[in-house]
């Protein structure tokens, strides 16, 4: 079947980001998500190419089939037609650390070129400018899931040479560092931003440009990043959302709680 792609201007950046997130999920995978865009992405994947994906929320909801948008990771909405409602030791301990989680989605206030993540402090540890929410289950997920998708906005102050605080481990200081530290999971595999998608160079474990969103220039990406980005010779344009994906996506979040309507 030919794919019927939406044209530039027919979708919002957040819609494209949700679609990118959804496409990172394979059918049948066990997916660990939080609220916000990752939840929308996982719901979209289940309604399109990955109906057998199993969505786990750390509060204890397992194989959730929520039909309403949840505001909290412990939201009762996530219990609708779930296969189980247990607790944190079940989800973060037995399922995740036990090696059953294929892909975990996390956000980040800052990342560095090895995909290390800060969600705890902005500014000095003793005298912070902003005290952020902290790890929650973020460090657990990034430590132990087989691969990690990071969804965040593309800004110079967020993509930094040195983190103010290292909350969750990317590739730490380079190749073999995760193994040396004793970490179980595979580390970050994809970063989805409002400008592009980035992956990680298998040799150096440094962040690398993968696709550029439609309508975005390479210069825009480079102007909004605080570290040296690996730019391969030929970088494709991000596959736009299909009309089918957009229709389903808009039905998932009809009131625009996480993806506000355009205009």
């Amino acid at each position: 079947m030919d794919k019927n792609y939406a044209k530039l201007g027919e979708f919002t950046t957040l819609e494209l980001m949700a679609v990118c997130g959804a496409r990172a999920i394979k059918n049948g995978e066990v997916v660990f998500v939080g609220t916000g865009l990752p939840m929308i992405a996982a719901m979209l994947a289940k309604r399109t190419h990955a109906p057998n994906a199993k969505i786990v929320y750390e509060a204890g909801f397992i194989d959730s089939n929520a039909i309403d948008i949840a505001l909290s990771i412990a939201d009762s909405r996530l219990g609708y037609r779930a296969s189980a409602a247990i607790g944190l030791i079940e989800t973060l301990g037995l399922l995740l650390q036990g090696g059953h989680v294929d892909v975990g989605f996390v956000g980040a206030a800052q990342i560095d070129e090895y995909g290390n993540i800060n969600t705890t402090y902005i500014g000095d540890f003793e005298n912070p400018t902003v005290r952020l929410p902290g790890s929650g289950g973020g460090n657990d997920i990034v430590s132990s899931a087989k691969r990690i998708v990071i969804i965040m906005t593309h800004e110079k102050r967020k993509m930094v040479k040195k983190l103010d605080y290292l909350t969750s481990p990317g590739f730490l200081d380079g190749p073999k560092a995760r193994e040396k530290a004793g970490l179980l999971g595979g580390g970050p595999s994809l970063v989805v931003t409002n400008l592009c998608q980035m992956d990680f160079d298998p040799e150096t474990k440094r962040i690398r440009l993968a696709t550029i969103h439609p309508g975005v220039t390479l210069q825009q990406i480079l102007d909004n990043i605080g570290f040296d980005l690996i730019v391969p010779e030929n970088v494709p344009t991000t596959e736009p959302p299909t009309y089918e994906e957009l229709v389903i996506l808009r039905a998932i979040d009809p009131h625009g709680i996480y993806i506000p309507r355009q205009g």
Partner: protein
Amino acid sequence: MVEAPIEDKRITLKEAAKLIPDGAHLFWGGFGFQRPPMAFAHELVRQKKRNLTVYTCGSEIDIDILSGAYVVSRFELAFFAIEGIGLAPNIQRRIREGAIQIEDYTNLAMALRFLGGALGVPFMPLKSMLGTDLIAKTKFRPKKAEVITCPFTGEKVVLVPSVRPDFSIVHVSRVDREGNAQIDGIKGEDVEGARAGKKVIVLAEEIVDTEFIRSQPDQTAIPNIYVNYVVECPWGAYPMMVYNYYDYDMEHVRMYYQQCKTEEGWQKYCEEYITGVEDHMEFLKKIGMERLLKLRAKKPFPY
């Protein structure tokens, strides 16, 4: 045959809060928007408790209120915010003032620390936190976590200290007079946390007959052996949610968030909804029965 008398552990919310001395260490139950002991937080504020240390995985308005009113001076936790809305406003201010300190762990680390306390072992091993500032940086604990080489396999493992707080405070779906508690929906870290405390106070949406519990013992999350006190506390998590009982009141949550961005706004909220009302029932009357009933869970949905 001798019939065992049913032990009655019921006390009032006021009596329960009176049990907590200044400086006590508490396990704080509920997770995110689900079953926070909100009414208990209000009562601690009314009774002007001070200098408490609170252990929890992730909490929201409940611990923001405890911070705003200077009830808590130290937290050991993994997460605080008002999810889907923003940062916890009072906690931000109290950190800036130096009135509260936070020792950071992960959700799994905290849950395991409670399990360790409940098991009576001094620490628990896990595979999170490795290679990060969660191990490298500490606020007030002389020793926060330790990386060791496993004596059996040679792999690296993190040890985190178990927690045995003075009291565990949990808000559950239903309980009988003896303290057999059932929790609908997710349990968060409450199963382990309730077993970690030296004394356990169970607050519940409703008190049910012991025979009801004993007709479905597989549904019991916390057996009476662990429980010292039982408090009947309907709508005790409002404005947050209780699975199968009621939804959150987002209008109130948003109002709280907006108003508490300033110290004056918080003081006004505290006076209007907490210190200015006699007790939990007066608080509920102030919110209004009509408003509460609209939040009742509507089958087949648990919200």
